[in-house]
């Protein structure tokens, strides 16, 4: 029974151990301010990771999320600079993200191209379009005064940062979707056995397109939050974010082969990455070493996971 628990909660135990180590070296780590800070820092990656989780559960992968983030944030920022109301600008950004996701979904299902290849290509295209759109220049000077737009990234409610509230709401909704809806069940089913799912009369293509759309939409939402926090949109924003998201999903115990995994696991994966970043910063570890540590933790987690099976 005990062994079973460790397997189930392996990543949670890992998170606790990390927390204990870092706290013992710097007790400030556990202060409310710092913990909220950790949550704020992970919020962008969290949103992307949740979308990535759905994609990976179907046995797919979405490499284009970082590029979608950049392109939709450029569009949002540009519209704001042009004087459109923040709601319109943000709505347009989200819509674009969703459309890019639909494109991914169509290429993968109707074009029958493997997700890795398909999104590798669209990643390059979206990143290129961002450069075309921005001419390679940052778009800044977005919110000289307080607007809804600046609130999204920098505001807080009851001293909880708005990005944290957003990602926790998204988390709750998606947890419900995965656990309690037909859509969630189909997501797992496709990853478990796509042929059998098709033969059960389920529109597998439609479910997949919806999932890539969700992934694109969440990447755009992450992009808007990031842009609001930084007060500017960069054409290089989000480079490598897809890898962080994949890392978080895998750390959370989801199999890259699809069919198995939980969103709570992904949340823990996200927190592990966030705690490592934040903790190493607090301990004044050079950022060069931080990547080494992060990569090693990912490897270690996966090795442990394998051993359990």
């Amino acid at each position: 029974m005990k062994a079973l628990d460790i397997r189930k909660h392996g990543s949670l135990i890992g998170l606790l151990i990390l927390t204990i180590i870092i706290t013992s070296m710097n007790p400030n780590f556990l202060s409310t301010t710092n913990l909220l800070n950790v949550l704020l820092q992970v919020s962008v990656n969290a949103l992307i990771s949740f979308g990535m989780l759905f994609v990976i559960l179907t046995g797919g992968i979405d490499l284009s999320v970082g590029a979608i983030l950049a392109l939709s944030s450029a569009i949002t920022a540009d519209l704001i600079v042009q004087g459109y109301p923040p709601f319109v600008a943000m709505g347009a950004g989200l819509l674009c993200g969703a459309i890019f996701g639909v494109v991914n979904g169509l290429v993968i299902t109707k074009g029958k191209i493997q997700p890795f290849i398909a999104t590798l290509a669209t990643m390059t295209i979206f990143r290129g379009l961002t450069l075309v759109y921005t001419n390679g220049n940052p778009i800044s000077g977005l919110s000289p005064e307080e607007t809804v737009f600046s609130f999204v990234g920098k505001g807080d409610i009851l001293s909880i940062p708005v990005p944290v509230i957003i990602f926790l709401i998204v988390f709750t909704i998606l947890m419900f979707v995965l656990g309690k809806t037909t859509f969630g069940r189909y997501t797992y089913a496709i990853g478990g056995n796509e042929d059998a799912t098709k033969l059960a009369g389920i529109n597998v293509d439609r479910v997949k397109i919806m999932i890539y759309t969700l992934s694109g939409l969440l990447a755009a939402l992450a992009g808007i939050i990031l842009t609001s926090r930084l007060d500017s949109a960069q054409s290089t924003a989000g480079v490598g974010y897809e890898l962080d998201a994949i890392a978080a999903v895998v750390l959370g115990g989801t199999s890259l082969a699809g069919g198995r995994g939980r969103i709570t696991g992904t949340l823990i994966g996200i927190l592990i990455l966030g705690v490592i970043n934040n903790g190493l910063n607090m301990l004044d570890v050079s950022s060069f070493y931080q990547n080494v540590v992060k990569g090693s933790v990912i490897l270690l987690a996966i090795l442990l996971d394998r051993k359990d099976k």
Partner: protein
Amino acid sequence: MKIEMKSISKSFYGVQVLKKVDFTLENAEIHALMGENGAGKSTLLKILTGVYKRDEGTILVDGVEKVYNHPIEAEKDGIVFIHQELNILPNLTVLENLFLGKEIKNSLGVINKKKMEEKAKTALKTLNVNFPLDMLAGELSVGKQQMIEIAKALLVDAKLIIMDEPTAALTEQETSLLFNVIRDLQAKGVSFIYISHRMEEIFEVCDVISILRDGVHVMNKKISETDFDEVVRSMVGREIGDRFPKLTNTPEENSRLEVENLTKKGLFENVSFYVKKGEILGVSGLMGAGRTELAHAIFGSLKYDSGTTKINGEKVKIKSPIDAKNHGIAFITEDRKSEGLILDFSIEDNILLADANHLSKFGVLKQSNIEKRVNELIKKINIKTNTSKQPVKSLSGGNQQKVVFAKWLQTKPDILILDEPTRGVDVGAKKEIYNIIIDLASQGVSVILISSDLPEVISLSNRVMVMHEGKIGGILQKEDATQENIMKIATGGN
């Protein structure tokens, strides 16, 4: 090879599935191991070969105590296990599958393909099957894949061959071929443990029979000293009466499904037939006659070249399983592992899959309804489990098949296509499934029953359609549907 297993026990997650089982196999003996689905047959033999660890007991092989920790160790001693669930790798060729892990190499480690091909050809010839060695195994039907598994055993110098339902996917002809091979090997001193739910086979080929019931060894006799009724009684623990229930359905005048000139080059040609409301149409034929492919074409999961389908007299276009489902068609495929089930899913989630819409509201699952419905189904077709949350991959083979059945039953179809629906299902449960099929037909459901089990098709069908090499050889009325007539048409005679 002589095997003595003494006082073997095994539990999974606190549920004891083998209770102090003693099992003895003599040299050059063909020993039948029978029992209901979930009785523990596969588990016992997996313990013998080191797939599972036993909780207690000892195993003697030719008088010497042995503990195998891995099937490879058992194979080194000449014990070959042909598993119930096929272990074919679909992306490798037939040849690669045959020699997986046992490739013939020269001293430099280079694979000697010529030699492997020669050996493979001989083995396939012994089994009288013939398919290209460089074909991808995944493109072969389940029956042919089964033949590869058997050929694998021939390639090793086996002293004991364990066959866990080897004939589930085979037709009568291939089965009798297999029996010849078994007898030949027996004459050379090879022992066999033979698991099957096909009664006739046991009496035809086995010398001794052991029966497990709920993990207890309840009978061990010479086959000549027992009979069909006694075997069934010991397996089930009660009388089940006639093996096949009476056909009580009366087909209506109108045809529900009409298929005209359906053609897919190389698979089937100009297939035309109809099924009436409330009728059971049996479909018989040899392996490779195109029955499964025809079913897939009707269900929209195989693109065909030409032909039309009508439902209730109206032309319909069924291009995908989604369309099929919308037209009230359900399809229980022959290959439960790759087409019928999501092995990681629970019983409940698998059953739910084909009909989630009726068990949900605005896409949100109605958990209490689901549980009620699923538990009803589990009871109705007697799936052996403690909880509907059990992953299907940990169910016994026959119980997995029942889950596939339950999944489609749940959709309340008008047209039910069954491809080998009782494969691997025990006698008692078979009868339950037969009762359900007849019941459905009595309520007006049109059933297409594809089966290689001749007594089954004959007893259960209002008419029998016999296919031969992709064409309809003939459609027999109930009174003409005898074993001889069917085989004659199936083999191409007139």
